[in-house]
């Protein structure tokens, strides 16, 4: 295993800044590792030549005294629904298999501006509409911890890549958990910022009012560094306007004694597999030892929130795909097509009812968040299921795997709050378990501080999966 493979972006940045390490060396090392890890199927496109050229340019700029900051020369990947100028962007679909954007998404442009080196485009569930990344057009992406398991999704390639040491950073999107699910199942950090914090311009939509863009990394500090580079107002995405961008790492390491945190302990959030429950309770104990004040709380109207979130997701996704559903339906995978079609049978009044319920529940959530700085829950109520496994068992009850994966994460998209998952233990068969921390709106710094304190108090983030094979 290369010594560089599992270095964090912050560690690499320190050495690159002082010219102790060349970005070319880092990128060559990661590209060789990607080549050796083909069995994971984490990438749809690897831009090796361009990456080497960008790394060389970064090396020359830094040597000339033009260091741009902590992402300069750092290799990153982008979920393959983030537009990249001149590089195909498939959305994991057959319909867009040959689509080559004429411009960069805002997030891609900001990473380029920060000097990051693009490794390639990470695999995803078709059109981001699913949680397995078992893609009918590009093959299944595999979990580095066990190759017969899903990595989660829809940003499954991003989760697998970061966990396996195929670059310290990947950008994902999260509409109903699609950053946090693969991050948790692959044992890495996944950050979904507040709705409107990061521009969605140039990112293929799944559901406009639920979509979020954010990083998957191996440390909380790296997540803060990446968020710093990609956050902020963008005239091309009006939801980002009017925000003030704080120093996201400013509170890392600060004492948290007395900070009030709610444990989501209602009936909806209490349903989980036994191995996850054990790890979650242990994580709560760690938070208590850090001085946080923890109390059981209820998510307002969780069941109704889930119905409304599902309705909004299905209706908006069906609208995005309306034309193709009419004339290219045969080019979708079966599971994506079935979900998209459900949205076409929803009425305008049903959609608006769901959005009115959203107003109601968002207001009730605001009341709750006045009393608590953050909320915690497991990220996923089970460890990664096998590829193709239709159900999982939560306690004694078998339940649909997709519903189980999204259960604890999707409600946070519905109310737009920031959330992060950090590794918090090992469940059945050595598979990772994640702890979800939900913050107040636009208060990512405090949420990151809690996540960082937990991370530094435990060693879960230092675990590494087995070396992946080239073929399977």
């Amino acid at each position, binding site marked *: 295993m290369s010594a560089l493979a599992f270095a964090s972006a912050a560690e690499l940045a320190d050495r690159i800044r002082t010219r102790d390490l060349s970005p070319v060396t880092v990128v060559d090392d990661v590209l060789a590792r990607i080549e050796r890890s083909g069995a994971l199927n984490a990438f749809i496109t690897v831009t090796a030549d361009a990456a080497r050229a960008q790394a060389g340019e970064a090396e020359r700029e830094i040597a000339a005294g033009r260091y741009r900051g902590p992402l300069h020369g750092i290799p990153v990947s982008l979920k393959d629904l983030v537009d990249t100028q001149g590089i195909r962007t498939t959305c994991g679909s057959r319909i867009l298999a040959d689509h080559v954007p004429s411009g960069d998404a805002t997030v891609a442009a900001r990473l380029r501006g920060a000097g990051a080196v693009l490794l390639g485009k990470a695999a995803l569930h078709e059109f981001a509409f699913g949680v397995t990344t078992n893609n009918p057009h590009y093959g299944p992406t595999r979990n580095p911890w066990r190759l017969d398991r899903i990595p989660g999704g829809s940003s499954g390639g991003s989760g697998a890549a970061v966990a396996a040491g195929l670059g310290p950073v990947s950008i994902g999107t999260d509409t109903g958990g699609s950053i946090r699910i693969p991050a948790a199942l692959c044992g890495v950090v996944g950050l979904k910022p507040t709705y409107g914090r990061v521009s969605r311009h140039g990112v293929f939509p799944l559901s406009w009012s639920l979509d979020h863009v954010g990083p998957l990394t191996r440390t909380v500090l790296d997540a803060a560094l990446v968020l710093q580079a990609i956050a902020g107002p963008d005239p091309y995405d009006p939801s980002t306007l*009017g925000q003030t961008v704080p120093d996201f790492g400013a509170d890392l390491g600060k004492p948290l004694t007395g900070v009030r945190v709610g444990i989501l302990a209602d009936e909806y959030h209490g349903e989980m597999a036994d191995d996850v429950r054990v790890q979650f309770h242990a994580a709560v104990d760690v938070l208590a030892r850090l001085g946080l004040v923890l109390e059981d709380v209820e998510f307002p109207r969780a069941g109704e929130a889930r*119905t409304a979130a599902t309705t909004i997701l299905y209706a908006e996704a069906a609208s995005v795909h309306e034309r193709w559903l009419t004339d290219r339906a045969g080019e979708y995978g079966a599971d994506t097509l079935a979900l998209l079609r*459900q949205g076409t049978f929803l009425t305008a009044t049903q959609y608006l009812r769901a959005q009115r319920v959203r107003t109601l529940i968002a207001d009730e959530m605001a009341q709750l968040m006045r009393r608590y700085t953050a909320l915690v829950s497991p990220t996923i109520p089970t460890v990664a299921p096998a590829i193709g496994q239709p159900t999982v068992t939560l306690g004694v009850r078998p339940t649909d795997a997709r519903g189980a994966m999204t259960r604890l994460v999707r409600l946070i998209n519905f109310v737009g709050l920031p959330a992060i998952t950090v590794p918090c233990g090992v469940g059945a068969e050595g598979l990772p378990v994640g702890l979800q921390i939900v913050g107040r709106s636009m208060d990512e710094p405090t949420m990151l501080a809690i996540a960082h304190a937990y991370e530094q108090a435990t060693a879960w983030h230092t675990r590494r999966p087995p070396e992946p094979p080239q073929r399977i």
Partner: protein
Amino acid sequence: MISVDDLERMARLAGLSVPRADLEHLAPHLQALYADLARLMTLPIAAVEPAFRPTVVVGPPGKGPVAP
């Protein structure tokens, strides 16, 4: 209760050609979703406008910027 025939008519109105076997597969999922949606009508939303974008504005005065 919505039937497969109903769904077939709705699909036709929307200009969609969906095989009947696919509609038979969709019907129970939609049936459950419609039932859940009907229950949302019991919530106190009579005076509530749709959200369209999540706007949870939280935190004590002076803590954090306002959500967009």
